[in-house]
């Protein structure tokens, strides 16, 4: 175990501008290099907000975020986020979207960067679509371009905000397998935000359950071996982890709602 966590979040407090009720009320969290952690919690508990703070889009009222020991103050290419709504720029071709980062930073000649991007698209099964506009792609394809757009920059930390939400369950399963291939092949440190129990257990080394205060209420390690395959979801271990996580979520939700309102508010 390395001495220093790749990501360290300490006592993070954040409220929307002009509001006093904090969304995050003292969140603390560490992520090890090379780990895949899934952050899950009731909707509106502040999962995305935490992602935005780590990425540097929001400024914390209190507490701090450090990556490799250095405090996060602004967005930077070493911590990239893939958003729930695909943020591909619709006026750029798939290839232009993917090369945008390295090209903006002028890291290498255009030709080199494009070759790299094409190799990545090939890996994602998208080489036939390099010159298409995003609107010509299916939902599953867009999500893979989103991943390529981030991964080409070799970020230290990848934050995925419910990237497969809105896809049907079957396509989502296939996308999860794609992503696992990417993660397991590169050891890409990832914080994956999800609202799906099955997804969380299937992907994670560790599931982080967030409560309504935005605090990590529980950390559930998942001990399924890697590389993971969809056959593993038929194992007792998987099924049990899923039920345990469902219980943990119910507990987190019940805590704030109280037993009375529970039936009415769902």
């Amino acid at each position: 175990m390395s001495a220093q966590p790749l990501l360290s979040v300490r006592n993070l407090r954040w409220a929307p501008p002009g509001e006093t009720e904090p969304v995050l009320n003292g969140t603390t969290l560490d992520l090890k290099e090379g780990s895949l952690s899934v952050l899950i919690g009731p909707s509106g508990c502040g999962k995305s907000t935490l992602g935005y703070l780590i990425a540097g889009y929001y400024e914390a009222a209190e507490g701090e975020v450090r990556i490799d020991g250095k405090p996060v103050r602004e967005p930077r290419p070493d911590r990239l986020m893939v958003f729930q709504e695909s943020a591909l720029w619709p006026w750029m071709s798939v290839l232009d979207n993917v090369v945008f980062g390295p090209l903006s930073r002028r890291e290498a000649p255009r030709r080199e960067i494009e070759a790299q991007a094409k190799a990545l698209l090939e890996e994602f099964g998208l080489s036939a679509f390099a010159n298409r506009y995003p609107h010509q792609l299916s939902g599953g394809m867009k999500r893979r371009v989103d991943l390529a757009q981030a991964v080409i920059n070799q970020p230290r930390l990848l934050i995925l905000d419910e990237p497969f939400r809105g896809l049907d369950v079957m396509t989502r399963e296939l996308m999860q397998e794609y992503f696992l291939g990417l993660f397991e092949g590169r050891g890409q440190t990832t914080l994956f935000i999800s609202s799906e129990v099955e997804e969380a257990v299937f992907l994670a080394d560790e599931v982080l359950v967030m409560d309504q205060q935005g605090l990590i209420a529980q950390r559930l390690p998942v001990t399924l071996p890697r590389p993971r395959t969809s056959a593993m979801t038929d194992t007792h271990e998987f099924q049990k982890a899923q039920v345990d996580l469902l219980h943990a979520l119910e507990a987190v939700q019940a805590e704030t709602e109280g037993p009375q309102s529970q039936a009415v508010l769902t």
Partner: protein
Amino acid sequence: MAEIGAEIGTKARGSVSIENLGKVYGAVEKAGVVALDHCSLAIAPNEFIALVGPSGCGKSTLANILAGFDQPNTGSVSLDGQIIASPSVLAKPGPDRVMVFQHGALFPWMTILDNVLYGATRSAAPHSDDLRASALDLLRRSGGLNRVAARFPGQVSSGMQRRIEIVRALMTDPAILILDEPFRAMDSIAKSRMHNHVLALHESVPKTTVFITHDLQEALLLADRVVVMTTRPGRIKQIVEVDLPRPRTTEVLASEKFLALKAATHQAVHDEALKAFEAGEKERA
């Protein structure tokens, strides 16, 4: 199944027989899209059937034919001995087969109770305190929704809206209830609660139900039988008897039996998903 219907004293109805059903979109002679091909299935009264398959496997086509929104090119569907769909019977929706859609259609300007009553008064004759009472009773059985009866749809969660729609559909006392991926957009917690509500409702007000989903786990959890469909052309690939005891709750997910059922079906569903996915990618290339 059948015995539950007898228990609450209603005559067992809602027996569906699907025979050799086929549907082709576009001109047949020009090799149109075969959405449904030689589908045969008998559904017992009050049975809960789940149709599972990838997008474009024809499960929605089947549901649309059942609901009377679409007409088959071959074969027939009969309901309690009467043919309701065939190439020669004009497709017609009716209150005896009600469909609840993925994106709901509650009238936002009516209270929840009025929405539910509207479902009934449009078709059923009695319009009285009795009707109100039975509407409130159904709402209560669907997880205590009677407590929000006076609110407007916009004031309750999307999960509740879906349940209210199911109650509204049940108010017409249909012979078949068709649910088209009603919980697709929900997160795990909301979905798992919905599953428990649907299980409880089906067990207290049994109905012949056809539930369409992409999600195998959801299908196994809710249904008496799961029908796995192939990607185009839509055929029935596998029928799984779900012999998990009722009443069920989501706790059953951790049982050995559930696991065995899932393991037996998973590969078939996964293969179809992959096939559909690859076909979809090729189509765009």
